[in-house]
């Protein structure tokens, strides 16, 4: 408004608005159809002039259809996508030349009169893109080509349709026009003769009547919400002046048709403009590349990983499931602890498979399995990570197969399997195998070192000895699960960490409290060194003869016990409580509860009466796996010490002094819970 009439009309540039489905469909077409071809492809976009926001041109999956199908209240736009094969081609492409090439097509459509039959050609756009289908990143740049024609002078400020005295007649005339012509048309408004009539572009322009042209309103569906008309009008003017050169220098009335939510036209705007000089078609330049988010000329990039990468989708859904538990039921649950804790599973049999799956359910990401077995025919029905085909193949190792299956279930997990023998006390190692055993020992030690939690899930008592020792020596959390025919034992080993400062475990009347560092391990209650437990046993004792439910129950308890421990502020140093009075008259005091309830030392259960008991037991000073004697000997002598125990289990008994102990007290030490016969067998 600075210089009166000299105000120049400016346009609201189109902004691209892309639906996720546009990228979904592009990825599908590239993979299934285009493959290595980067030929251009015609697409359709749409824009709306009902309740318009900004000045948008939208594309979605329907862009790739063979004909335009704009949604309700929208109008079609004709486009092209140039999807390049590499980011280099995308970058290197001559942008000016591409814009000029597209602009010439637009001019051709105007010159040939094709736009009169299909006015959506005026709403021309194109996309230069590169789809990185591996990372689900899309680089793209929209352009809305437009000839750089002489400026338009505004004769007066934009006028609102409702300010016209006969606004109703205008609106009614427009309503009568068929929907497919509503994008561009001409309104003949002769106030003197009381005629208001909407006419199609072709009807008006093929035989242009100069006499009547003063009554013409050049109408277009205006996608702009601003005072300025949408970019479309620029091409519209260029087309009109190219079709009717006599209009150059004359005042032209443009009506930007804008509907509100109730489909009222009141807010449509009228601009009266003059283009003083004609444009020279020969040297026409083009404009129209869209600016990026920073307002600069340049492409955009969007990562669609969250909605397109199946692994990411799975990860998000899994996390959401766990978060729901946190949000709705346990607000203080720390899910990161589970995601970060690395678990090492000794044994990939029935227990190993079940524990691994439960770990995945809880959001554990790092799972490593150690096992020396192959998948056999009897395995798949009980061992939930294997199939019959694995057994038929004949050479599938459990550890590696299980790791692969865990990744099949959750691709974002980090799972490994190592095939190795766990050396056992009393299982003499011949000279020929010494080298291999050394290597396996090193690998086992290294794995224990690299993990936070050790699960003991093997099928014999003596194979648990080395991991128990290593877990104690390296101060790891150790969870043990062992099975009988219809019974199970799940326990956390006592910690070997030193209590920092005075935690002062709460004493509760009627309850005995054992600090986490005082709790026993699997071997603490045992007065014999692990010998060859597979020897001298009947068949039913040697291989797994358990009620099938037992392993799943024990595996579930094992993982839940770990989670409760990890959520406890003292972790493995958390004390365990048990009732020290058997007085049934007395009210049993409540066991102290943490975030997820109580944290017992061990769970011993029976299927025959569906009962659990929760004993807590002290460390045994002469334990053959976790006592000071053993840990010191291991620290001092290393593998040499281990090989001595492999030679004969008696060595351990002598070292710890159990031999003496056993001789003196063999009658006193007796399992008071002898009905729990833990054969600790997992699987053959």
């Amino acid at each position, binding site marked *: 408004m600075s210089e009166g009439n000299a105000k120049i009309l400016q346009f609201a540039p189109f*902004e*691209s*608005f*892309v*639906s*996720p489905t*546009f*990228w979904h469909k592009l990825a599908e077409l590239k993979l299934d159809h285009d493959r290595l071809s980067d030929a251009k492809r015609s697409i359709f976009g749409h824009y709306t002039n009902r*309740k318009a*926001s*900004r000045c*948008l041109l939208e594309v979605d999956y329907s862009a790739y259809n063979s004909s335009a199908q704009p*949604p*309700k*209240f929208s109008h079609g736009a004709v486009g092209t996508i140039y999807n390049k094969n590499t980011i280099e081609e995308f970058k290197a492409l001559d942008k000016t030349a591409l814009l000029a090439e597209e602009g010439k097509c637009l001019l051709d459509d105007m010159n040939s009169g094709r736009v009169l039959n299909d006015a959506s050609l005026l709403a021309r756009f194109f996309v230069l893109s590169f789809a990185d289908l591996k990372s689900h990143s*899309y680089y793209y740049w929209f352009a809305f080509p437009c000839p750089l024609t002489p400026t338009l002078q505004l004769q007066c400020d934009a006028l609102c349709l409702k300010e016209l005295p006969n606004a109703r007649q205008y609106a009614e005339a427009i309503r009568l026009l068929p929907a497919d012509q509503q994008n561009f048309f001409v309104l003949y408004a002769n106030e003197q003769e009381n005629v208001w009539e909407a006419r199609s572009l072709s009807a008006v322009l093929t035989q242009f009547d100069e006499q009547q042209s003063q009554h013409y309103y050049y109408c277009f569906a205006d996608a702009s919400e601003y005072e300025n008309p949408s970019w479309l009008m620029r091409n519209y003017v260029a087309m009109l002046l190219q079709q009717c050169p006599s209009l150059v220098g004359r005042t032209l009335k443009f009506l930007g048709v804008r509907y509100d*939510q*109730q*489909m009222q036209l009141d807010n449509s705007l009228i601009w009266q403009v003059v283009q003083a000089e004609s444009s020279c078609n020969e040297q026409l330049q083009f404009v129209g590349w869209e600016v990026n988010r920073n307002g600069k000329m340049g492409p*955009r990039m*969007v*990562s*669609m990983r*969250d*909605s397109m990468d199946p692994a990411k*989708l799975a990860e*998000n*859904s899994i996390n*959401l499931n766990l978060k*729901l538990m946190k*949000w*709705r*039921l346990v*607000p203080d649950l720390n899910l990161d602890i589970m995601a970060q804790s690395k678990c090492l599973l000794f044994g990939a049999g029935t227990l190993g498979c079940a524990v691994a799956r439960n770990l995945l359910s809880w959001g554990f990401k790092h799972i490593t399995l150690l096992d020396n077995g192959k998948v056999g025919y009897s395995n798949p029905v009980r061992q939930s990570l294997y199939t019959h085909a694995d057994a038929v193949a004949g050479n599938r190792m459990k550890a590696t197969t299980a790791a692969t299956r865990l990744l099949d279930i959750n691709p974002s997990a980090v799972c490994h399997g190592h095939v190795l023998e766990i050396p056992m006390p009393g299982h003499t190692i011949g000279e020929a195998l010494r080298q291999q055993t050394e290597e396996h020992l090193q690998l086992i030690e290294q794995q224990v070192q690299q993990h936070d939690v050790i699960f003991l899930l093997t099928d014999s008592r003596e194979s648990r000895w080395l991991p128990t020792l290593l877990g104690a020596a390296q101060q790891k959390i150790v969870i043990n699960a062992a099975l009988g025919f219809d019974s199970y034992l799940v326990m956390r080993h006592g910690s070997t960490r030193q209590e920092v400062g005075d935690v002062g475990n709460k004493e509760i009347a009627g309850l005995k409290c054992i600090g986490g560092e005082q709790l026993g391990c699997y071997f603490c209650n045992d007065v014999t060194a692990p010998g060859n437990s597979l020897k001298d046993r009947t068949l039913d004792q040697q291989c797994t003869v358990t009620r099938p439910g037992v392993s799943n129950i024990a595996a579930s308890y094992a993982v839940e016990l770990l989670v409760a421990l990890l959520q406890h502020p003292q972790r493995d140093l958390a004390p365990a409580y048990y009732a020290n009075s058997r007085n049934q008259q007395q009210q049993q005091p409540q066991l102290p509860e943490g975030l997820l309830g109580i944290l017992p030392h061990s769970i011993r259960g029976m299927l025959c009466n569906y009962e659990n008991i929760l004993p807590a037991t002290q460390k045994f000073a002469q334990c053959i796996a976790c006592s000071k004697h053993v840990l010191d000997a291991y620290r001092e002598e290393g593998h040499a010490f281990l090989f001595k125990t492999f030679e004969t289990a008696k060595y351990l008994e002598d070292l710890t002094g159990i031999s003496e102990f056993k001789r003196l007290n063999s009658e006193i030490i007796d399992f008071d819970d002898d009905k729990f016969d833990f054969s600790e067998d997992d699987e053959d």
Partner: protein
Amino acid sequence: MAIVNLLVFNHFWIGICTSANGKIVSMTTLTWPEFLYQAKQVLEISNELNDNWILCEKDEQEPNSYLKYTQKIKGKASEDLISVEYHIVYSISYQVPVLYFQAHRSDGSLLDLEATWKTFLPDTSRSELYQMLTQMEHPVLFRPFMAFHPCRTTEVLAQFGEPSENVLITFISLYGPYVQLNLANAYGLHSQINK
């Protein structure tokens, strides 16, 4: 139409979810044919009012038809324009309508749960939001969508005493405003007139 503050009930959210099964109260539940009938009614009114509700019909099976509405909004957190697609879907297990929605930015990226919360309900405290606005699998499209959990819908609807002529309109008027889905008053009037 009055808007009930859904947030005040949240302390009892979980408890009611579980106990609702056992209760026999005359609640505002819908059968699938009723849902479909009322959805078509909404569609008719929308067409009369020149609004843009659409009935998406995947097939004849229960519950594979749902009402869809799309609009652009400006987020409260930023100036970015966001496109939101709202679906009114039938829940077989709860026998109520469920409001599912999904929002995306101009580049096609979806708003995740955090961004959705920030956009629509920046002033409400988080713990309350966790209770009602969550992510669930869309029962027709099998993709994750944002949704208002349906476990309290029957009670919220039942608070309107007389069963309304069109439960879907009542439902949308109650839940929609939380996510900027505002149904014109004319919908309520229309369903009265059709009576």
